């Protein structure tokens, strides 16, 4: 294949360690004793649980409903009973809890009725919605809801679609095996994306250390009769980063502040294409994924694993060595040690590496930076990590942003080459999350300011209204008196002067009108007084209303529980 490849600057060549797990075909991991399915498995809104403890669920049944457009549904990975919907520790570096649906499998693995669809008969909107309903997210690790990436930019024509089969991280082989064994379905899935985005070219980038996968994909492309180009790219970490692969295949550079569609290019992982195909044409939502289990184990291998499988159960299949002291989720460059071994496999879990000091020797102590510039030469985004480190360390976050810290993709190349053993990426993550926290605080402050100013405005207005009301009342009082006096005078005069008598009804009418006006004013004032009572129940968002309703409900419950509570008094 003759094609001009581009290069990205920087990059490193860590030992790949991929052969260990390539020896055997993909195996089906057995159904575990318990599945803990986190609801929040993609970027975007947290899905709302739609099952309760005790519910019977079937494989593929919806258990979490997408919340908003950028959010993806979550499904039961197998049939069984919902044990609880509760907080569990997440496979997340924080080690914090999040809402999970815990399912006890019944072992039958019984599917919901699956309806195969010919997607060509559907409109693009329908396809996107189906993908969302099926919980299809980017399986390369970023877990961005796929349907959200399938809309072309309105202004820029879609030129290239890049399919990421590079898999540059050491140890990980799940995409490699997927392409070897299920190439045809991957290619068909790519076809769906192609039909939605209508790019001029489809480029499948595969690192040149996976010739088998590339051959399989080429054969599949031929077999399906597509015109996708399978392109081997030089093995260089992080060639599998979306932006790097786009650069290598198309020469386009996507900056941090832009979407790739703005440049007429979009990138998908091969595994995403595969799940999209299964979801659309087989009606199977994403309930499992391929996971490489490797590292400090006897039998490294790739498994098809149900989402929610506890990691330690999965690791046992590969029989870890006794000195294993932790599990890395993801690759050795960007992964993290999971907080506890029984956290569940999620859609982002592409690899589990059994950690041991033998495999990953403990790091030498951190030395001060000597500004040698190795990191800047290794950085695929051409940043200057040593400067960002200098200011992150000093907590001078404004400066870190001047050095473009948000363009950092946290690939770890800088830490890899650092002679001072500085955990650079760690400093950048720290700085980024501090900046985000500040942003949140700033937003909260702006909102608070707005609300404060609104309240002040309202109070001003109420004060003005009150003053006006008082003035009106005083005026009314005076008018009334004047009217009474006038009436008395009129009554006295009626007898005396008959011509004026004709005026009397007029005066009476006038008086009546005035009184009516006063009455009305008083009514209004009363109404206003009532309105001025700090009620503050208007203009509530559904969330707030819901919160209030919940509190009311709890209150009702509390009242039931405590009958002697002064319920009557309140219920008036």
């Amino acid at each position, binding site marked *: 294949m003759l094609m001009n490849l581009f290069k990205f600057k920087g990059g490193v060549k860590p030992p790949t360690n991929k052969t260990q797990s390539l020896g055997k075909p993909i195996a089906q991991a057995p159904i575990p004793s318990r599945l803990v399915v986190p609801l929040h498995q993609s970027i975007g809104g947290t899905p709302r649980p739609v099952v309760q403890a005790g519910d019977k669920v079937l494989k593929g049944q919806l258990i979490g409903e997408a919340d908003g457009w950028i959010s993806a549904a979550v499904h039961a990975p197998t049939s069984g009973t919902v044990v609880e919907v509760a907080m569990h520790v997440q496979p997340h570096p924080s080690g914090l809890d999040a809402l999970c649906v815990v399912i006890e499998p019944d072992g039958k693995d019984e599917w919901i009725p699956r309806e195969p669809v010919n997607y060509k008969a559907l409109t693009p909107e329908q396809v996107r919605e189906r993908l969302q309903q099926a919980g299809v997210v980017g399986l390369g690790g970023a877990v961005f809801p796929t349907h959200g990436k399938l809309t072309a930019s309105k202004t820029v024509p879609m030129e290239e679609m890049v399919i990421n089969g590079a898999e540059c991280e050491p140890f990980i082989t799940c995409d490699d095996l997927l392409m070897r064994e299920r190439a045809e379905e991957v290619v068909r899935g790519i076809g769906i994306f192609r039909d939605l985005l209508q790019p001029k070219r489809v480029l499948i980038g595969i690192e040149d250390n996976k010739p088998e996968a590339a051959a399989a994909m080429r054969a599949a492309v031929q077999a399906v009769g597509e015109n996708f180009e399978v392109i081997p790219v030089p093995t260089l970490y992080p060639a599998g980063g979306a932006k790097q692969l786009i650069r290598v295949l198309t020469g386009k550079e996507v900056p941090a502040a832009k979407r790739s569609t703005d440049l007429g290019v979009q990138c998908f992982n091969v595994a995403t294409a595969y799940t999209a195909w299964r979801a659309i044409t087989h009606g199977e939502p994403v309930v499992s994924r391929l996971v490489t289990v490797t590292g400090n184990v006897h039998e490294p291998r790739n498994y098809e694993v149900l989402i929610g499988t506890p990691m330690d159960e999965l690791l046992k299949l590969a029989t870890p060595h006794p000195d294993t002291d932790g599990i890395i989720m993801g690759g050795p460059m960007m992964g993290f040690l999971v907080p506890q071994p029984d956290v569940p496999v999620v859609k982002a879990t592409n690899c589990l590496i059994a950690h041991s000091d033998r495999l990953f020797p403990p790091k030498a102590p951190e030395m*001060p930076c000597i500004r040698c510039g190795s990191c800047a030469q290794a950085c695929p985004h051409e940043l200057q990590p040593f400067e960002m480190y*200098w*200011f992150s*360390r*000093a907590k*001078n976050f404004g400066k870190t942003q001047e050095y473009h810290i948000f363009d950092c993709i946290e690939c770890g190349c800088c830490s890899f080459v650092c002679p001072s053993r500085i955990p650079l990426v760690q400093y950048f993550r720290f700085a980024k999350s501090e900046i985000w926290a500040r942003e949140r605080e700033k937003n909260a402050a702006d909102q608070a300011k707005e609300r404060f100013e609104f309240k002040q405005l309202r109070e001003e207005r109420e004060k003005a209204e009150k003053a006006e009301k008082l003035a009106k009342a005083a005026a009314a009082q005076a008018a009334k008196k004047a009217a009474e006096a006038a009436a008395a005078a009129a009554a006295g005069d009626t007898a005396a002067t008959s011509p004026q008598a004709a005026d009397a009804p007029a005066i009476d009418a006038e008086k009546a009108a005035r009184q009516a006006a006063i009455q009305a004013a008083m009514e209004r004032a009363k109404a206003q007084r009532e309105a001025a009572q700090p009620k503050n129940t208007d203009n509530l968002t559904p969330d707030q209303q819901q919160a209030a309703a919940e509190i009311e409900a709890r209150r009702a419950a509390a009242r039931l529980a405590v009958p002697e509570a002064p319920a009557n008094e309140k219920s008036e």
Partner: protein
Amino acid sequence: MSHYLFILVGAVLVNNVVLVKILGLCPFMGVSKKLETAYGMGAATTFVLTMATGASYIIDHYLLIPFGLEYLRTLSFIVTIAAIVQLTEMVIAKTSPTLQQTLGIYLPLITTNCAVLGVPLLNIANGHNFVESLLFGAGSAVGFSLVLILFAGIRERIEGADVPVHFRGAAIAMVTAGLMALAFMGFAGLDKYQ
């Protein structure tokens, strides 16, 4: 021509007003924490100093000397400088309130910046003519701004350094200024080259 060049180079580098003559240390230490402020201070001082040398030359030669009032030199120079500084402050207040706030007290204190008074007096002591005075003033001002900006650049970097606690802040700044002065000694003799 080369005579003027030597005056200029001499004022900027060889006899740098801050690092060699040790004049104007107050703003040099005070407003060099941030590069941005240093740019502002440099610009303001350059303006004031150049204006002051010109104005003071005119005052000296056309008012004080003809009337034999040389003893009023210091007084009249200070008054002139104060007026120019006041003018500068108004302009800065109009154009950049943040700069005004960050320069803070140092902006009006340009009045008492010994470099600003020292340079006109040195002009007279050296018997410079008007063009020479202006060149010497501008050169000194550029020299002041140059070292102020470079110093601010270094201080911004030192900010993140693991300086021993007792040396943080002014102490390490003084050490740095000293080492800068050492570096500037390298220019010694350049203005005397034949």
